[in-house]
């Protein structure tokens, strides 16, 4: 990757106020993450529900107030922009949401939906009907879908409409929140191939948020694993899949179902539940569930860097047997 990154996230925190008048405090949904996304690159955010993936995506898109840190898009700091400044950014950065049908206005036709970005940002003499045809063709839908309503679409078709709307203004970055959620496997594949193809053709950068590791493997150049609002491991997708260095990544990857039934399947089982964001563990926040945890892990913060762990794993490491619950 060369040149300056299209998106640069530095130490971003997002906090939410909780409690009543007397017990007011704040929890950190995103607790300080940093990463870069370069032009033409796909970056995946992985993590279980509640790990802060979606909150981070909303913060990048300006839908969520950033309480600390900075976000730079295309050389411009955007977390401090006002409404009109952010509107200009949104021409070049689009977002896709989880629910394929639910993210489409139910009373608008497909034609109106995919050309909505032009109506918001000015049509500049474009013929909206031609644009709708062009976009629908680009995502592989027949042009006569323009007169349909969202409830008449299947999940996969609705997702394609969402993709068409996201690429309408020729953005340099697309943030896709669970682009394959709610789709069956063959349609997931179609949507991913479509995204890959469009990325190559239009030179897009993408941030994909998912808990589906097959999706990550299929489309992402680099990935970050989130746990309790922090990155525990970042790296090239191939390298991370080949040899996860953080115990949490290793456990996550070992839980990924393999289509081949004969393949050896060594699951690393994590004890206990995800801790509450209201009472984060001291030291390394993963130590409460980590099979490799040592005494230092309960007191000292792990080193920052690509792998947030005191004792990064060697390739093929297995958890010490005494720590694995029966």
């Amino acid at each position, binding site marked *: 990757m060369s040149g300056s990154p299209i998106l640069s996230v530095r130490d971003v925190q997002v906090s939410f106020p909780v409690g009543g008048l007397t017990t007011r405090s704040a929890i950190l949904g995103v607790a300080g993450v940093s990463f870069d996304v370069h032009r033409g690159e796909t970056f995946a955010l992985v993590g279980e529900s509640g790990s802060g993936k979606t909150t981070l995506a909303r913060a990048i*898109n*300006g*839908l969520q107030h950033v309480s600390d840190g900075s976000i730079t898009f295309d050389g411009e700091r955007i977390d401090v922009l006002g409404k009109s400044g*952010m*509107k200009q950014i*949104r*021409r070049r950065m*689009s*977002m896709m*949401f*989880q*629910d394929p049908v*639910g*993210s*489409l*206005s*139910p*009373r*608008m036709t497909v034609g109106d939906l995919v050309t*909505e*970005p032009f*109506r*918001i*940002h000015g049509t500049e003499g474009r013929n909206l009907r031609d644009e709708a045809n062009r976009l629908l063709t680009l995502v592989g839908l027949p042009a006569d879908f323009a007169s349909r309503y969202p409830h008449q679409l299947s999940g996969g078709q609705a997702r394609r409409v969402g993709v068409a*709307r996201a690429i309408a203004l020729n953005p340099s970055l697309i943030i896709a929140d669970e682009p394959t959620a709610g789709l069956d496997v063959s349609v997931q594949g179609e949507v991913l191939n479509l995204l890959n193809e469009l990325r190559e053709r239009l030179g897009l950068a993408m941030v994909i948020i998912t808990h589906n590791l097959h999706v990550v493997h299929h489309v992402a150049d680099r990935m970050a694993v989130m746990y309790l609002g922090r990155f525990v491991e970042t790296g090239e997708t191939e390298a991370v899949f080949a040899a996860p260095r953080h115990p949490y990544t290793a456990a996550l990857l070992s839980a990924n179902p393999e289509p081949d039934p004969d393949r050896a399947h060594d699951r690393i089982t994590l004890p206990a539940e995800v801790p509450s964001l209201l009472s984060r563990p001291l030291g390394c926040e993963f130590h409460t569930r980590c099979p490799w945890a040592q005494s230092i892990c309960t007191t000292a913060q792990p080193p920052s860097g690509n792998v947030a762990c005191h004792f990064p794993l060697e390739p093929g490491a297995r958890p010490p047997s005494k720590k694995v619950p029966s």
Partner: protein
Amino acid sequence: MRSVRRLLREPLGVFGLALVLLVIFGAIFADLLTSWDPTRINPRDRFLGPSTDHLLGTDQLGRDLFARVLHGGRIALYVALVSTAISLAIGIVLGLIAGYGPRWLDNLLILLFDAMKSFPTVMLALALVTITGPSLTAVIVVVILVNVPGYARIVRTQTIAIKTSEFVTAAQSMGASTTRILRVHIMPNVIGPLVILASMDIPVVIAIEAGMSFLGLGVRPPTPSWGSILNDGFGQIRETPWIAIAGGLPIIITTLGFTFLGETLRDVFDPRLKGR
């Protein structure tokens, strides 16, 4: 289209529709249906009973009651239409503001709606007419004051329910302005149930107009109104009952018609009853 067909399958709905169309037809073609002038006083023909000449008889001033009833229908429908339309417009705007705007504004508007709702209609009408004097405009203003809080509350609730849905967030992420989000993405989704509610409110509006005119707070004589005809006949109900009947019957027909129609419409559009 399917909704219309379902409406026509419901006997009560068809009956209501027929009554409503009858009233509208009578109001529109009043001048063709009778040659009598509804305001012409004819002292020699006072208190005439129904006959082929005067279909519903005449009142204490010798005016033809059939002509007065038809023209009274114009007033009733005019008030119903104008005040409902204005109430809907104001209610939608205030409801969207309350539902989408900041919390303090929401609280303020809710307080205002509750205050307006707590006035008994008659007291409100009396208070207003004391200031402005009786007029058709006063009737319309009273109806608007009575209707707006209810409409605004419904729109507010729907807006709050919809504003966190993903398609609204998606519109925000595209950079849509607040007015665009309200107008294009939220309003079309709240308007359906509201229109049905408004159609069910029309009998109430007509009753308010008739009631205010009956009390002398509404339409001023000699302009005919069903309420004032009812009042004309009220004093001599034992001697000349047809005057009170001429005033009361159209009120009954119209309110029944709109009620049946509104209730059937509600059932037809209620998705829970679909496919029945």
